[in-house]
């Protein structure tokens, strides 16, 4: 979108470029449900200044956020931003270099590793199934590793949840990638996790399989499962997540997708005309509701404090000037715009 850079709120981008992530959590009520003991209200994930370094290389730095019980939390960022390392750290596979966190109400520490892992599930990007074992045998193995009771019942429920009951006896090696992904999801549901970490759950899936995974995530949200979703697919995050965080080694932004858009981009109107105005400065400059304007390939982009108030005034001014107005509409910035804005900003900062 060519007009995007000038429309960015310079104050917001300045804030987002600071060491502290721009956050709208103060404005957003974090969903809070029962804690691990069934009564204590607590965050499913609470991360405070968490950092991980591999020698000189910083995987992620000074990351802080909270995720409430029952929330679907999107974790976005470019390749190498530290998303998977963060998930692995919260899943006790990797020890943090500094900072603290609690996962499913249990403080993150080496001695609590096994206890934390029993209350969470992690689905890595690759399904990681035993291909010479059947679907049921794979799930039996993991039910045993979680030391679960009622194994047949749990396997049946997990397979029903992912709509795979009829493939229970198939060897995993004979399944398509989409079906394997669903088996991996069934595996992740076996222990009724308090927090479910999904790392790129739709990576490499076709649109139909992707939609099925999305539907499953939506149904899990309805059941109150806390989901920590790492993804590259911004439309996926926008569609599924209550809140998203954008990580690029440091946490750049966190909040609800619509609030991030509002925070990062000034509100604006897109005006499309059959032909450009002869003297746009005179016409648009005379409308007090317009703060700033610029020409776009299809018309004009107008920065306005209140689109509902400005649109009628703009329409009147254009008609008075004899313009053929095709449309006047409020600009809508996708989460992708927000994401690209932040990532581009980081690239430019590194280049400087």
């Amino acid at each position, binding site marked *: 979108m060519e007009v995007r850079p000038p429309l960015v709120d310079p104050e917001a981008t300045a804030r987002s470029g600071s060491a502290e992530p721009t956050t709208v959590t103060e404005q957003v009520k974090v969903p809070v449900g029962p804690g691990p003991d069934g009564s204590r209200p607590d965050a499913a994930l609470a991360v405070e200044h968490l950092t991980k370094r*591999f020698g000189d290389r910083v995987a992620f730095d000074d990351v802080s956020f909270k995720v409430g019980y029952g929330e679907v939390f999107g974790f976005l960022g470019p390749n190498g931003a530290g998303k998977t*390392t963060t998930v*692995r750290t919260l*899943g*006790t*596979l*990797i*020890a943090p270099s500094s900072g603290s966190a609690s996962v499913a109400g249990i403080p993150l520490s080496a001695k609590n*590793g*096994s*206890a934390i*892992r*029993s209350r969470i*599930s*992690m*689905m*890595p990007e*690759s*399904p*990681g*199934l*035993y*291909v*010479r*074992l059947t679907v049921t*045998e794979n799930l*039996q*193995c*993991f*039910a*045993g*590793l*979680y*030391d679960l009771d009622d194994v047949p019942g749990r396997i049946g429920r997990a397979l029903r949840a992912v709509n795979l009951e009829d493939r229970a006896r198939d*060897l995993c090696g004979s399944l398509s990638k989409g079906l394997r992904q669903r088996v*991996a999801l069934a*595996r992740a549901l076996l222990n009724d996790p308090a927090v479910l970490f999904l790392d790129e759950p739709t990576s490499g899936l076709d649109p139909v399989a992707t939609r099925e995974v999305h539907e499953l995530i939506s149904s899990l949200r309805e059941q109150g499962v806390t989901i920590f979703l790492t993804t590259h697919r911004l439309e996926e995050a926008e569609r599924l997540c209550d809140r998203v965080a954008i990580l690029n080694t440091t946490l750049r932004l966190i909040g609800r997708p619509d609030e991030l858009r509002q925070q990062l981009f000034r509100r604006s109107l897109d005006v499309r005309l059959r032909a450009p105005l002869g003297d746009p400065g005179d016409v648009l400059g005379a409308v007090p509701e317009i703060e700033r304007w610029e020409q776009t390939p299809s018309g004009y982009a107008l920065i306005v404090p209140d689109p509902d108030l400005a649109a009628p005034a703009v329409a009147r001014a254009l008609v008075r000037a004899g313009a053929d107005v095709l449309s006047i509409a409020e600009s809508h910035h996708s989460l992708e715009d927000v994401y690209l804005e932040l990532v581009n900003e980081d690239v430019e900062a590194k280049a400087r």
Partner: protein
Amino acid sequence: MSFSWRRVRAILRKELRDYRRNRFVIGTMAAVPVLFIILPTIQLIAANATNKALTLRIGLSLLYMLVIPVTMPSVVCAYAVVGEREQGTLEPVLSTPVRREEFLIAKALAAFVPTLVIAYAVFGIFLAIAALFAHPVIVSAIFMGSHVLVQFLFTPLLAGWAIWVGIAVSTRSTDVRVAQQLSVLGSLPPLVIVALMSLNVISESTALAIGLAAALLAFDLLAWRVVAAMFDRERLVIGGRG
């Protein structure tokens, strides 16, 4: 969370199911015993009681039997960790509450049990063939107490050593084939002592056999501690970057 035998059983069961459907493992478990029973059997049946090198032949034949518990588990165990990593199953497994001790013991048992069954079965078949077809002098030499004792004592101990070497190599490797070659090499040293006994270079006695077995048991226990210390979840997940 305490040690759970249920988690050990879960991995053990999975491993045994996996072996059953893995042509490479089935091939190894079938080919190695066949190879190491044909040669010594032919040697013994063809030998006559006056052969000056009879002792050497019997020693060599029995040594073949002990190659089974060394080679078979080292080949299988070399796959234990690096194989899981290659097929992408290591991270999901390590993401469960399973403790490293549980994981390692399950992997070790999955190699130990079939090895023991096959090695003892092969030795039993060898003894039966010898009893039926070999010269009575040879039979009595084979059934001499210390020979049988060496087989029964050293089979599990050599297997134990080979298993820990195999798993240790597997935790540090990034390639299954390299891991298999290295683990077979690493499992051979204890066999040298047994070979020296079997070939009468070291004078064979019950006391010596028991003493060496105790030493090998100590090495096995030490190897288990070393392997447990080497099993670092973080390094395994990130592939050695850390």
